[in-house]
């Protein structure tokens, strides 16, 4: 039951991220200059139609708004390639309010999901590739190479991952195009995450290579790489799948932390980290405009979903006991 809820949560977010251009009423950098830090517009039923009411600025200094209940703006469905939008361009539909630049938080959260989730997934896959390769080779060959690889992984695993990522990122030029940042961050995360995969894969490969089927393959004249990739690594598949699921949330949070301190994606790009960075320019900002924290809620839901999906199967190493 819990697992199903978890899987449903993760799938829902993945779909939302994939269909962001349709689900989001606006693009990630559309600004409404008259609506800075405006609260969410809540759609409600008026007659048979869903309508919203415009916000009227009460205090420019404190950025306080008042609902203009004399007007009802109808929502328009399936228009201009969006699922839903406001029928009056001057009264935007902002389901989660706007940020301090007047951008729609809901739209940015969906586009941010694309950045954050894909970065988490790509980094985790990178870590799996590096880790499975290193662990597989170390476990299959043994000897000095095994020693060197495993000592290195032990060393990296002891270090606080966040500081390793921070140090590696901050020695690169600060201002980089978004695509370069994406590649750079996923490479850094893959390196930091790989040892966790390598250790387990090595243990599995070591214990499997003495089993009959591996010895039989060797007797039939199969080459080393063939035995490793065709026969031994598939034995580690369960472990790898679980570790992949465990790494993704860590990387999503790592991106958010780096973006939070200004070392992640450059400004117009929406990611959950850059959104939290904008929200916390100072504490008063998100205390007064709590909807700015919605990317934090989004992150919580994704991590919760991944954790629930893994309930009861923690390691994938049970076969070794």
């Amino acid at each position: 039951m819990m697992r199903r809820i978890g899987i449903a949560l993760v799938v829902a977010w993945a779909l939302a991220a994939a269909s962001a251009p349709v689900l989001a009423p606006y693009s990630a950098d559309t600004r409404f200059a008259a609506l800075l830090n405006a609260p969410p517009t809540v759609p409600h039923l008026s007659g048979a139609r869903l309508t919203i009411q415009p916000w009227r600025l009460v205090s420019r200094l404190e950025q306080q708004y008042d609902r203009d209940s004399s007007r009802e703006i109808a929502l328009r469905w399936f228009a201009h390639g969006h699922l839903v939008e406001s029928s009056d361009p001057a009264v935007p539909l902002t389901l989660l309010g706007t940020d301090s630049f007047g951008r729609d938080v809901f739209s940015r959260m969906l586009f941010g999901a694309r950045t954050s989730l894909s970065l988490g997934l790509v980094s985790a896959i990178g870590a799996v590739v590096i880790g499975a390769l290193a662990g597989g080779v170390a476990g299959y060959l043994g000897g000095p190479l095994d020693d060197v690889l495993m000592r290195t992984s032990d060393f990296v695993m002891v270090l606080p991952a966040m500081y390793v990522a921070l140090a590696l990122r901050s020695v690169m030029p600060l201002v980089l195009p978004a695509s370069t940042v994406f590649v750079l961050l996923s490479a850094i995360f893959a390196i930091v995450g790989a040892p966790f995969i390598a250790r387990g894969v090595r243990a599995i490969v070591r214990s499997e290579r003495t089993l009959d089927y591996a010895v039989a393959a060797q007797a039939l004249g199969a080459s080393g790489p063939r035995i490793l990739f065709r026969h031994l690594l598939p034995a580690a598949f369960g472990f790898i799948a679980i570790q992949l699921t465990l790494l993704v949330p860590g990387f999503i949070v790592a991106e958010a932390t780096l973006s939070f301190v200004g070392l992640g994606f450059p400004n117009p790009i929406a990611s959950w980290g850059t959104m939290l960075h904008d929200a916390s320019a100072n504490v008063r900002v998100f205390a007064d405009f709590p909807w700015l924290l919605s990317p934090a809620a989004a992150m919580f839901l994704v991590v919760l979903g991944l954790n629930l999906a893994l309930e009861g199967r923690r390691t994938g190493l049970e076969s070794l006991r």
Partner: protein
Amino acid sequence: MTAYIVRRLAFALFLVVAVSSASLVLAEIAPGDASLARLGPTASRQAMERARERYGLNRPLAVQYGDWLLHVLRLDFGTSMLYDRPVSELIPERAANTAILAITALVFATFVGLPLGVVTGTRRGGLLTNAIRGGSIVLLSMPPLLTSLFLVFLAARTGWLPIGGMRSATTAGGGVLDVLQHLLVPAAAIGLPLAAMFERLQSQAIAETIAEPFVIATLARGVPRRRVIWRDALKASLRPVAAVYGLVVGTLLSGSFAVEVITAWPGIGRLMLDALSARDVYLVAGCAGVGSVFLACATLLSDVALAYVDPRVRE
């Protein structure tokens, strides 16, 4: 046991030297240097050259590194270019703050997480078990980045606790009460997810232990259930938690980075961030050195503790 401790000590020493050296070299080879970060992009070429000369940045990398290493042996950690003060003056206070934060969080997590884990692991079902388990799963999905944002949000909305500004002008010199008040939010932010992790681990460990023959035998001899669980089974089930203690310190430091930045706790994390972005190589190396000393001490302690609990790991 002595040989084991010596081996672990050697690893600890290697860890400290390797981490501080690596971070120094990394900061050196990074594009841009402290003179640029200090004087800004509009500084004249001559001014930059003078600054490089003064801090010895114009020498080859190997010479700079060797010189730094020689000075470190004499406990001279160089001068911070960002603050124009000796690194050895800047670091102790910040390092102490991070240590206070990390230790408070760890103690809190241990004394809350472990007993709750024993409760949930020994009682199947029931309202209490399910409530604790649910709470743990929720908290496990909230890394310190999120808990600290949430707690700071709560503190700012309710005004119950101060946000940032420890040892502010109003409380010159600080005092224990000031530190405690400011400590609550960041320590809870790191401690809560950690407590949840300990609860889950301990719950599983003790559930496995109470199924063992020796527990059943003890119960059969008429020893009260409460005493069997809290004295005999608890002791035998501590290994998994003891085993993660060494790795937890890395997690603690990682978590405390985000928390220090969000809650404005004046620890080593913020200093490291500033030093890195200013390319303040000696300060970077100093921060990394202190961090790795924490790490080395903690892994050493947890290794020894684990070897004590479980003699098999000494081999």
